[in-house]
Structure formats: structure tokens, C-alpha cells
């Protein structure tokens, strides 16, 4: 055993250093170099910019929409909501009083907006990350009449906009029907601008 121990020291220390350099430094640096060259947009967070070049979001990350003028994103447990440095779920269990209380409040709010029938589950539950960029089509469609009313746009136009933004599963099986809320709301703002110009 003693011999086994002494014979292990040099290889253990030298191999740890060599692997640390290869796997802890060279590998991530090389991946960064290649990634930044081949896929610069994605490697930096798939950022969206407005006409002036200001960053207004990321195509893959959700942001808080709380105004009634916009399609609202799901409740979020990331910090105070959609905190990009504090991703988290609520971690509330199925029998937690706190979960029931929160969902009840949100359901009542949706009822007050005039949503009838079953409330789409994603509309009143927090996501795993707190940064979910999507809504189910049902959760988006449930908000159509509120958004149309507040923006004074015909409901049919808003509904058509949502339907155009539904992304379908790859090959019909991989993934879920979903709507990217940021993209939808950007299109909604454009629709309103066009609308006021009388193009309808």
C-alpha cells in the first residue's frame, strides 16, 4: 500500500495540472474562439436590438410584461420577476398553501379580465427558470380580447397576429405549440402603428 501511495503522487499531481490546463483553459477558450467566429449572434446571447442599436432583449429569454397593453408573460419566481441574474422556479410543492394562494389571486385577476372556462395552466404557474420566453397558444389567445380592447384594434386582427406567431413542433412531434411573447408584442406594437396609419 505504501508503495502504491508514493508511486501515485507524481502522476496524480502532474496529470491534474495537465488536465486542468487542457480541459479548464484550452477547451473553453477554443470553444469561445470558434463559437464567436462561426455563430457570433448566438454565442453572445441571441440579442435583439432596436433601430438605434440598443439591446432590447434576447430571442430566447423571456422578459416581464405586466402592462395590460401587452400579452403578459407567465408569473416568474426569478428574483422580483424575470431577473436574468437569479433564474429560479418557485419550488412550491403540490400541497403548499402558498401555491394555492398565488394561483387563486392570478385566476381571479384573469376572471376580472373576462376570461371564462378553464384557465390555461401556464398562464397562472411559474416556469422552471423564471425566464420562460413562451406562452402556450391557449394562454396567448385568452388575452386577445383584453389587448384588443385596450389598444382599440379589432379582435380578429389581434387573434390573427397570435395565430401567425404560433410555432409548431419540429416534424410534428418534437416540441410544443408555443408563442414567443417578445416577438408577439413587438409585432403588436407595429400593428398598432400601422393601424393608426389607417392601413386596415
Amino acid at each position, binding site marked *: 500500500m505504501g508503495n502504491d501511495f508514493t508511486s501515485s503522487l507524481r502522476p496524480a499531481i502532474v496529470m491534474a495540472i495537465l488536465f486542468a490546463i487542457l480541459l479548464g483553459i484550452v477547451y473553453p477558450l477554443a470553444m*469561445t474562439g470558434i463559437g464567436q467566429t*462561426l455563430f457570433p449572434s448566438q454565442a453572445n446571447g441571441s440579442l435583439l436590438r432596436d433601430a438605434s442599436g440598443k439591446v432590447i432583449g434576447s430571442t430566447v429569454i423571456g422578459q416581464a410584461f405586466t402592462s395590460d397593453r401587452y400579452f403578459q408573460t407567465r408569473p416568474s419566481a426569478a428574483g422580483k420577476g424575470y431577473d436574468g441574474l437569479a433564474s*429560479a422556479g418557485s419550488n412550491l410543492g*403540490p400541497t403548499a398553501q402558498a401555491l394555492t394562494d398565488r394561483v387563486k389571486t392570478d385566476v381571479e385577476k384573469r376572471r376580472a379580465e373576462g376570461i371564462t372556462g378553464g384557465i390555461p395552466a401556464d398562464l397562472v404557474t411559474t416556469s422552471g427558470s423564471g425566464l420562460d420566453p413562451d406562452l402556450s397558444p391557449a394562454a396567448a389567445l385568452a388575452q386577445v380580447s383584453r389587448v384588443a380592447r385596450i389598444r382599440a384594434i379589432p379582435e380578429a386582427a389581434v387573434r390573427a397576429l397570435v395565430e401567425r406567431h404560433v410555432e409548431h413542433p419540429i416534424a410534428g412531434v418534437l416540441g410544443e405549440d408555443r408563442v414567443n411573447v417578445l416577438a408577439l408584442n413587438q409585432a403588436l406594437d407595429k400593428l398598432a402603428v400601422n393601424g393608426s396609419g389607417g392601413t386596415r
Partner: protein
Amino acid sequence: MTIQGWILIFAFVGILLALTKPVGLWLFALYEGRRTPLHAVLGPVERGFYKLAGIDPEAEQTWQRYAVHMLIFNVVLLLLTYAVLRLQDVLPLNPLGYAAIGADGAFNTAISFTTNTNWQWYSGEAAMSNLSQMLALTIHNFLSAATGIALAFALFRGFARRQATGIGNFWADVTRVTLYLLLPICVVYGLFLIASGVPQTFAGSVDVATLEGVKQTLGLGPVASQEAIKMLGTNGGGFFNANSAHPFENPTALTNLVQMVSIFLIGMGLTWTFGKAVGDTRQGWAILTAMLCLFLLGTAVTYWAEAAGNPILHGLGVAGGNMEGKEVRFGLAASALFSVVTTAASCGAVNAMHDSFTALGGMIPLLNMQLGEIVVGGVGAGIYGFLLFAILAVFVAGLMVGRTPEYVGKKIEAREVKLAVLAIAVLPLFILGGTALSAVFEAGLAGPLNKGPHGFSEILYAFTSAVANNGSAFAGLTAGTPWYNGLLGVCMWVGRFFVIVPMLAIAGGLAAKKHTPESAGSFSTTGGLWIGLLVGIILILGGLTFLPSLALGPIADHLAMIRGQLF
């Protein structure tokens, strides 16, 4: 449940079955030390490493030497990680200026990543510098995985060799697996992830002015390079707190599928490699069949429970399955499937919050770990853990017919059975022991977020995850305290190495034995009877041991849920 959901589940299994033999063949080449096409490029690196470290890759090691070299290597890596975390504030590549990690936290994390557990008491984007993520954590993702595969190779040699003293060379095994398997796959895999939207940059964060005019700061970093090995090496330690639920770690349904496939890829390949090594690939397929039976059973239960949803929320007017803690882009099926895959293997990455699953939906991940993570299992650890159960199963079969049991040409005698029981006993001893302590002491009871039986489940899940080296959590538990950091740290160490050493002792003993050819009286270990016996032994052992604890946690929680009782 939908047809689409089941198509996904069966497509997932189908893809892996198609990849099992090719991956197994590649692993077999590494097991044998054969030359691969990659040697042309990476051969000089391998030889350079040996030369600098004074290693003779051809030198056979006894099981004792193999064990000591493996342990010392892991201790050196542990110390390196501890040092980097403690000095994080003065080391470079710390764009957000994070402070050094405290002593108990660094102790826990160093063990966690060394043991392939990747339990995380901290929130990655709010605690770890880029250098810590790379140098302290990513290296373990490779090397703990390579260590696991090397150990599986050692046990395979025990079964395959005849009257031999050595079980291979630890350094050669680890180096070859890292250079010719893990690293090349990760380069390709990492690029796929970047192309799909996973960041790879040294910027710490970016500020966003949202459409509603609020400032949102998005954490960034070298995510893709870590993400690839996190999944392939069944590590599971996320760059971000939300792990694979975070859109920057797992942006699309396609990345999600690839992540699930990569968790099982090497573990399934190793079953084939085992069969090839012992000269009968049917032995490997039999093991894989038993694993897949258990896997599909678990998947069906969790998917059913999550799709059925929470009756308490239905009573409030909410329609559909349980979406609390789940992402819309994954939905119910892919979230349920991911949770079963990640706990069947010792991965521990999550794409949905297990703490918010329905009671029975969350019980399956818990049970998967309690069975010892042998349903495919962690890279290497899954197959050597499974073979310990196979030893018990042939022993039981031998008792029934009154004959010395044999397995793949080796007589299984008292020494093997004793050592296998010793290794398997670690699980209940430390899972139930740690849970019991935490359920009576103030410091332990301070942890749970949820009250009632679900709070108990949070504690039970933590110790199960630690001892089984999984790393997933019922994350409501506040684990960043000296009590949990210390106790869980010890559990992770014991759960890894107190299994490995008896297993290597078995390998050494088996290698020294003669080959016993199959005779008319041998119990066949390839047919349906064997597969049924294996599944039965695993379920009975795990069930008898852990059913009482499950009754106090998830089962009580389920009964409360259907009665509408809140805590």
C-alpha cells in the same frame, strides 16, 4: 398524456438503441487500448502527458494500486477546486466581481464535483466567476466522468480476464477516455449548442432595456463548453441556477432531446462494451433490457402523474396538467421524460423543477436514485452499480437451486457477495441516516421551504441525491448552510468511494479466478427469466429499504393532495 408525448418517449429510446452498439464498439476500442482514427491527432498529446507524468501506460496495476492511484488523483483535483473557489476573488476572469466562496460551501462543492454529483447549494450566475466555472468545475465534469468509465473498464477486466493479477492501468484508462471520447464529442456537441442559442463568451452579463422600459440584466459566460460535458458526463451541474430549464442552457426542444440522449449515451454503450468484453454481447443486451423495463415503468408513472395535474389547482379553475416549474417549450412529456432520465442516470440536470412536480410524479425521480441509479446510470457508475446487483441476483438464483452461482464465466463466491452487499448497504445507511438526523435537529429542520410531508420529501431527496451522486434537488431546501454543506459533503464522498473500493476489490478477486465454462447446469443470464429476476431483485431490495421513507414523504403528500389538504 398525448400520443405525441409517447412518440417522443419511444423515439428517444429508439435513437439510443440505434446508438448503443456504435458507442459500445468505440468504448471497446478504448477498453482494449486499441488505436482509433483520433490517435493521429491526439496521440502526441496522450504520449506527452504520460511522459511528463512519468507514466508507463502498459504497466498493469493490481486492484489495490488501481484504487490508490484513482483516489489520490481525485484528492489532488479536489484540493485544486477547493483552492480556486476559496481564492476566486483574487483570481482573474471574475467579471462580476464575486467574493470568495466560504469554507463550508467550497468543501461541499469540491466534493460535489469530484464525485460526479454536482449538487449545487449556490446559484451559479450569482456566485461563481468564469474562472471557477472553467477551472474548478468543468475539469471535474470531464475527469469524474472519465474516472467512472475507467472503473467500469476495471470491473469488466475482472470478469473477462483469467488468472490475472492486474485490472488495467488507471492513468491509461482515464487519459484515453478523456482524449478520445469525451473531449471530441464535446467539441462537436458544444458547437451545436452554441448554434442553437447557448452563449459562449467571456462577458459576464449584458443589460437589456425591455419593451416595457425596465432594465433586465442577463447573465452570460462560457456556458456551451460546460453544458456539453455536463450532460455527456452525467454531471448535471448547471452554469445557471435553473440548470437546463434556463433558456441559455437549453433553448429549444431539439437541444432538450439531444441533452436527454447525451445523458444516456455512454451508459447504454457501456452495456454493450461489457457484453463484448466477456465474449457474449447477449449479456450486455440482457442488462440493457432489464434497465429499460425499469426506465419505461418510471417514465409512464411520472408522465401520467404530471399530465393528470394537481386537483387542488383544478378546483380553482385551472385547466390541464401540472405546469408549475415547467417550461412551455418542453411541456409535460419532455419535462417528465427528462426528470426520469436524469435520475435514472446519475446526471441530476433538470429542465423542470422536481420540487413542484405532483407527489407521485416527483416520487419516481426519488425512487430512481434510491435504487442506486442503475437504470442505465451514470457513466461507468451505472454499469458497475448494476453489476453489483447482478452478483446478488445470481447469488439468489444459486440459493434457489443449491449450486455455486456463476456469472459470465466466473464463480461468484462468498467474498464477492459480501463485498457487493457492503457496497450496496452504503445507500440506505447514509440516505436514511442523514435524513433522520436532519429531521430531528433544528439545523436540519431549518432547511425545507415547504411544510408538511413535502418538507420531509425535500430533506429525503437531498440525502438521496447526495449519496447516489445525482445532484438534482427538491430545490426549495435551503442547503447552503454549514449543516447541509457538511453532512451532504460527507454523504457524497461516501456514496462515491465507499462503493468504488469494494467494487474494485471484487474486480481484483474475479480477475484472479479461473474461467468456468458454461455447462448444462448453469443458470442462463441472457434470457427472460434472468431479466425478470434482476428487475425483481432491484425492486424488492429498493422497495423494502425505502418504502417507509416514501410513505412519510411523497405518498402522504399524494394522499393530502387528493383530499385537498394544504400545508
